[in-house]
């Protein structure tokens, strides 16, 4: 019988598996960091973690609260700066970056700036931070988020961070380097992007979820992969490591 887990644990375990060994990942706090730490303790022991404020390849003793706090360069190979960290991304040495946001559209564009009129917003969010840079520079960007219609929207109120912009060819036309959204892991499914159109595509459904359910929680029409799969559940071992070693204080997995 499958292990018992909450949706945060599920998302983290699923996301972690996409991080290949020997690659680099730029992470923030919370779930992305947990996914990177889990990957390091499972299939990707030599995954290199980079923080935008300058922490390079730390041996994280616990989850950071800020991407610039001491934990992010605890026993790191280098305590660098933002220019050095971001330059590493810009010249093409960072494989994955994790992003978050309030809204996401079919091309993986993200809004983390505001809802409503820009000059006097209904809701003001933090803005880009390093997200726009990561999404512009890194080869594959990943998103972990809960799946809802208010989040997966037809049109973002503001495009803070580039996905594929208006679709195939648009990044190139804008001058962005090759790269773009890779996987979106939600509490319902894993989505990728259609190779031709760059539109969001359901690739794998979580247990007890069907396409209609995912579509009903999405504000635009999703494509469905020809090779639609069923998400592999977290293993007992993954859950044990996540709970006992990665997040023993349940700072992230306790939020679900």
């Amino acid at each position: 019988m499958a292990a018992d887990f909450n949706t945060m644990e599920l998302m983290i375990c699923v996301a972690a598996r996409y991080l290949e060994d020997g690659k680099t990942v730029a992470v923030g706090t919370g779930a992305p960091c947990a996914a990177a730490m889990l990957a390091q303790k499972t299939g990707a022991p030599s995954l290199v973690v980079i923080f935008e404020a300058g922490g390079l390849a730390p041996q994280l003793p616990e989850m950071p609260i800020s991407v610039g706090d001491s934990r992010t360069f605890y026993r790191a190979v280098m305590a660098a700066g933002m220019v050095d960290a971001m330059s590493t991304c810009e010249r093409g040495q960072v494989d994955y970056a994790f992003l978050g946001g309030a809204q996401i559209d079919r091309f993986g564009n993200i809004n983390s700036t505001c809802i409503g009129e820009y000059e006097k917003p209904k809701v003001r969010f933090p803005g880009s931070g390093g997200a726009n840079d990561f999404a512009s520079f890194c080869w594959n960007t990943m998103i972990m988020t809960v799946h809802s219609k208010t989040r997966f929207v037809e049109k973002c109120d503001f495009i803070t961070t580039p996905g594929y912009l208006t679709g195939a060819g648009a990044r190139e036309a804008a001058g962005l380097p090759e790269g773009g959204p890779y996987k979106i892991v939600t509490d319902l499914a894993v989505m990728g992007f259609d190779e031709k159109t760059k539109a969001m595509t359901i690739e794998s459904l979580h247990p007890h979820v069907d396409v209609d359910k995912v579509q009903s929680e999405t504000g635009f029409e999703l494509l469905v992969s020809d090779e639609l799969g069923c998400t592999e559940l977290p293993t007992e071992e993954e859950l044990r490591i996540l709970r006992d070693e990665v997040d023993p204080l349940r700072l992230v997995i306790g939020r679900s």
Partner: protein
Amino acid sequence: MRVLDEGKGPLFMDPDPDKAREFFRSKSRAMVDKRMSVKEAVERFVTDGCYFATGGFGANRIPTAVCHELLRQGRRGLGFSGHTTTHDFQILCAGKVFDRLDAAYIVGLEARGLSPNARRYMQSGEVQVADWSNYALAARLRAAGEGVSYGLTRSMLGTDTFTRSAAKAVECPFTGKTLCAVPALWPDVAAIHVHYADKFGNAVYKGISVADHELSRAAKHLIITTERIVDEAVIRDDPSLTSIPFYMVDAVVEVPHGSYPGNMPYLYFSDEEHLAEWMRVERDPDELERFLDKYIYGVSTFEEYVELCGGAERIEQLRKIELVEQPATPAGQGA
């Protein structure tokens, strides 16, 4: 080589490097004693309407004492910028210190959530904003420190962040490819907190530099707050360690625990309980008012503030967390 597109966001500061050169020409390079109080430093170098910037990273190695002093002295109408600004931003919003903002990361405190009061202020329409990415802001400072009028990045392109910035998309004269040009930014004054400095301003920080290398070379005036002031010989004994040379610095202020309630690498972790208290009281403007009266307006020195927050005993607890002898649990979270 053409300008292909341009953001329509406001450009608050003139990117003319010759005007900056004229300023720096007249800035003293004499190695003189620059020690003073935070009160004096703010009085002398931060004027109403000037453009201000903080070093560090939001709640890590931040110049808290300078931010508090800006409130106490009632500074208004400032321009402000930060790559990730969190608790520093929150303090400045509480005093409505700025009304022009180059934003990259604002109103949030990362994993701690969003500041209710900073959001209210940013949603009030009282602040003129340009949006940027963190790296774009760092690139603006870097260009300024290098004495050129713009810097380059391949980010921001194609997004509303670009549209709401004052960046321009330009054609590379060598490759024909599109790059994002960002205008140099010379803040009128910046404040950076460091581990130690001599009285002339030769300063050393440890751990990540964030964008402080760039900021310290770009700021026209620079206030250094420092955990401790050391003899010049300590600096000269190992010049490989120096982060900031004295000729950039205008004021050296000794402020032990000066990043509190933020994190100071190797010395003390952030005080998550006090930061949570900030977030809690911000829900109610009246309660925030009382809180500010108690912790900022009602005290005259940063030392008093630290005392109010638990003083040496609290700092000792935070030291243990910093040294990973105890876990860093965000208040109100955890099992």
